[in-house]
């Protein structure tokens, strides 16, 4: 080939490349600008088109299956740790001396808690996404029985005589009592809203069960969460105690002498405008402490300090001598060490007024928090060795167990559970999601208002610049990547925009996520938040007769009088499967006078039973109330011709809706990842 021809070819392709490059880059720039709502986000195709893939080859290539240790137990002789590996559906048997994982026992889906029988021969593991408890023979490391429970079994406790297993059903909000002789559920109580934690008092007479979500109350009422007290002797509920201004009471522990019970909690200030964030004190974290005597006092003490918050307290354990409590704060990767004698002193020397005021005192923690111990990402479950000398911490997003000497209060070891070495982009995003480091004074993180990546059941006053009141019912993040736009007003067309600069302006009130972190957070939110199965209302895809009738009503085009229903007034028009949203804005005449004028983004409806209250400002306590109280003008679908039977059928059908992954039977989507 002649030199001139070669040059001509090079020139041709160069010109062609430039012709493609510049308009292409311009197009890409515009595309990225639209997706991110900023003009300087790096043009990196991988962040959007690789790391956000939910399934397929690329997804497998860039993601890893982690263990995510959540809770754990220690054998009486201290020779074994039993670790719930939540996202590998397994109980890990670990030798704390050699730091080796000796066995990986497969259990049900998304195991939550583990407890050991008093003789140390059996372990019980609650499987939150299977609605059962695995009974494991520890000698053979085999599952020897599976006990059916209510929906979402979480916390576990054994009766004093070891004959009964108390299971806290977190999704159906029950307490199941299982007779271990027969394996049958003996009775089931109503508990508080979304209960999880449970502990039997040292005298074996009283079982406490804590709630995560607050009781549904109209906006403006004082928040209350139920502490359910079970009489172990009669196996009846003895008391339903409202703990005011608190929620997310994840776990509870008794002192060995039984003089105090201590539960972790969050005190949210959801009634004040969100501009409060930049003043601090928007969300506070601490303990509810209940004196165990007649007319015992209940006080709330914060773990926080002025200008530093210890977000997302999860577990609490107390040393055998009753002197120290350890509390994991998963939002700030910290274990707080609490001197219990100092709390006893507070009880003894404070007036009732002083005790009441402590709940809002950020400075008082210096009187009882003696040390903060840093951990790896997202410390969750805690367990003490039987002599109380070692504390084991499940570092959920590290796939590790850290070991802390409870006398020196130093970390003395770290047990690698053998999870993937690589921290994927989405995993990094999950760490960011769970970490308060990006919020002013570490007041909260995404997980705080979206526990389990769902929602916290609260209504917040998201005051805008125009200072509209804008009461906002927190929305679930499950499969949220598939249902843009975001926010109730639909202003954010992508997760990038939702969590970008505006997010920091409105909520975190600090530096926005850098773009690398934003890419990671987005990748996690889009790919890593699946729905739980809907085992309570639709366990196998076969609808009940009532649900089938409700489905027909949901899809109907004519009302009971035979008249055509306007297309935009049919349920199916706006709430179209598979997510039961048409991704468009709608007018349903629920705008309050204090709201900024807006249409509302049509919400997705899968697992809607698990998201009370309803409507944008949470005014409807139940699904029924959407229409019985707030649908009088048929603006939210044509319903006023329906009989009560039909409304019940419709609600039954709505409760049956579940994620497309279950309808399509795609097993790989049924487990959380990253």
């Amino acid at each position, binding site marked *: 080939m002649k030199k001139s021809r070669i040059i001509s070819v090079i020139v041709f392709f160069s010109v062609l490349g430039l012709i493609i490059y510049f308009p292409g880059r311009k197009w890409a720039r515009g595309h990225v600008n639209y997706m991110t709502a900023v003009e300087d986000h790096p043009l990196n195709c991988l962040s959007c088109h690789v790391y956000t893939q939910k399934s397929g080859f690329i997804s497998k290539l860039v993601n890893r299956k982690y263990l995510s240790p959540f809770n754990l137990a220690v054998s009486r002789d201290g020779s074994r740790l039993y670790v719930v590996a939540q996202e590998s559906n397994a109980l890990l048997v670990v030798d704390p001396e050699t730091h080796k994982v000796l066995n990986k026992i497969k259990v049900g889906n998304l195991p939550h808690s583990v407890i050991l029988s008093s003789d140390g021969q059996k372990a019980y593991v609650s499987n939150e996404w299977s609605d059962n408890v695995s009974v494991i023979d520890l000698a053979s490391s085999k599952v020897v029985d599976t006990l059916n429970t*209510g929906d979402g079994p979480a916390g576990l406790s054994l009766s004093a005589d070891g004959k009964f297993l108390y299971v806290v059903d977190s999704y*159906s909000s*029950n307490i199941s009592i299982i007779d271990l002789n027969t394996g049958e559920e003996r*009775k*089931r*109580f*109503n508990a508080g809203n979304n209960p999880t934690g449970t502990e039997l008092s040292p005298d074996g007479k009283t079982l406490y069960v804590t709630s995560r979500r607050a009781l549904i109350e109209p906006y403006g009422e004082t928040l209350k969460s*139920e502490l*359910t*007290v079970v009489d172990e002797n*009669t196996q*009846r*509920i*003895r*008391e*339903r105690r409202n703990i005011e201004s608190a929620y997310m009471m994840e776990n509870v522990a008794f002192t060995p002498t039984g003089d105090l019970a201590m539960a972790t909690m969050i005190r949210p200030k959801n009634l004040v405008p969100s501009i409060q964030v930049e003043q601090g004190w928007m969300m506070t974290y601490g303990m509810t402490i209940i004196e165990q005597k007649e007319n015992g006092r209940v006080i709330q003490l914060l773990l926080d300090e002025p200008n530093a918050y210890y977000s997302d307290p999860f577990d609490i354990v107390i040393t055998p001598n009753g002197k120290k409590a350890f509390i994991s704060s998963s939002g700030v990767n910290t274990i707080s060490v609490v001197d219990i004698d100092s709390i006893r002193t507070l009880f003894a020397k404070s007036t009732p007024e002083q005790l009441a005021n402590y709940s809002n005192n950020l400075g008082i923690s210096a009187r009882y928090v003696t040390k903060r111990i840093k951990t790896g990402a997202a410390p969750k479950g805690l367990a003490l060795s039987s002599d109380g000398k070692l504390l084991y911490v499940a570092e959920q997003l590290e796939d590790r167990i850290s070991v802390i000497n409870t006398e020196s209060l130093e970390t003395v070891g770290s047990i690698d559970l053998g999870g993937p070495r690589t921290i994927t982009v989405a995993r990094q995003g999950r760490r960011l999601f769970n970490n308060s480091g990006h919020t002013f004074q570490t007041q909260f993180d995404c997980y705080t208002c979206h526990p389990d990546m769902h929602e916290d059941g609260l209504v917040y006053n998201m005051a805008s610049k125009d200072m509209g009141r804008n009461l906002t019912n927190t929305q679930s993040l499950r499969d949220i990547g598939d249902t843009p736009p975001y926010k109730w007003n639909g202003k954010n067309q992508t997760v990038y925009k939702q969590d970008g600069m505006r997010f920091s302006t409105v909520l975190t009130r600090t530096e926005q996520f850098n773009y690398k972190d934003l890419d990671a957070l987005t990748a996690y939110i889009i790919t890593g938040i699946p729905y739980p199965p809907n085992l*309570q*209302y639709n366990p196998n895809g076969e609808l009940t007769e*009532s649900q089938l009738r409700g489905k027909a009503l949901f899809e109907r085009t004519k009302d009971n009088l035979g008249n055509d229903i306007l297309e935009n007034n049919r349920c199916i028009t706006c709430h179209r499967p598979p997510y039961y949203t048409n991704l468009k804005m709608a007018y349903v005449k629920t705008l309050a006078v204090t709201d900024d004028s807006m249409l509302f983004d049509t919400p997705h409806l899968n697992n809607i039973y698990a998201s009370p209250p309803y409507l944008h400002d949470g005014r409807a*306590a*139940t699904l*029924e*109330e959407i229409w*019985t*109280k707030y649908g009088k003008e048929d603006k939210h679908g044509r319903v006023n011709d329906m*009989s*009560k*039977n039909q409304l*019940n059928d419709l*609600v*039954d059908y709505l409760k049956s809706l579940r994620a497309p992954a279950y309808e399509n039977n795609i097993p790989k989507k049924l487990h959380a990842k990253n």
Partner: protein
Amino acid sequence: MRKTLQKNSLRTTVAVILCGICFVTVITAQPKTVKNAGKTDIKDDAKSMPVYGHWKNFTTKDGLPSDHAYCVRIDGKRVLVGTHDGLAVYEDGKWETYTTKDGLAHNGVLSIDVSELTGDVWIGTLGGLNRWSAGKFETFTQFNSGLPNDLVYCVICDGKDVWTATGGGAGHYDTYTKEWEIFTEKNAPMHEPWTYGVSAGDGKIFIAAWGGGVIEYTKKTKQFKDYTDPDGEMEIDLLPDDGVVHDITTATSWADGMLWVSTYFGMSSYDGTHWKGYFDHDSGLASNFINFLRAEGPVVFICTDKGLSSTNGKSWVTYKKNDNSSDGMAIIKNYGRISDSTINKTTREVPLTPSIAHNFIIGVDADNDVLWVATEKGVSRGELIK
């Protein structure tokens, strides 16, 4: 009241009475001559039928929120009474009242039952249903739940299930799955959705449906069967013992293999094969106008507008208050079969001092040696004569 009245007007009238709205109506019991057949000791009669005496009456003067008592339920050491003005709880000799201020759905409490499984108290009111658990009220209404209707005439606990009889049909609530089912004329053999009573027994649910007789629901098969009056709307029972005595039923109760059914025109029993009718003219029944009944073992207690009757199907004991004093009597009737054609009837009237609070009886409950009665003029507590 006559059968010739149309059902709708009857329904309205009687419903109003049941709701207590027309309690101002003075119920005038017809006095009978008190006879004492020579024996003053009623212990002998207690051998075949429990007889209660030593009556103690409670009114607003004793701490009840209202004298209009609709229902009573014994719950261990305490007694729960539904009144027109709230729930009254009698414990350790004291009455305590709970109203809407405490979380009650409505102050008119029509029915109470206690779950043997959980100890939760379920309360049917004129404005919804409550679960009262460890001191906390939870409210179900037709607006916030699948409860058929806020007018809850009757509520019962059957294992993990709660059944209600309401003005808008019978409701079934599964406390485990938290799902409601509604049964009306649209999906059950009822004439209309109005239901007054519900009871459980023998794996079945028995619904007292206005104009529909008794609706039997078999839990295992989920199949319905209805029992209606073969005589239709005839005033008289043309063929005795051919079925339930009237289609307008007010309560059902099952115990010891026997279903008891009350109507405003007499009472029926059903042993699974044969029906038998009981009327004021051919039995010891105080009146054909029966508000409620409850069976305990072989004995059924019948709340009428003219006193409280009780029977085991053969012997009868009726408690009546005298019009002009707090005293009254126990009328004891024994029916002994001498031959196929001859029945020996004996009647004794035994003075009671004091007697029950009033003859218009709406609720009753018995437990061990104690009988509690809800009347228009207070609550009465009787002790078993041993």
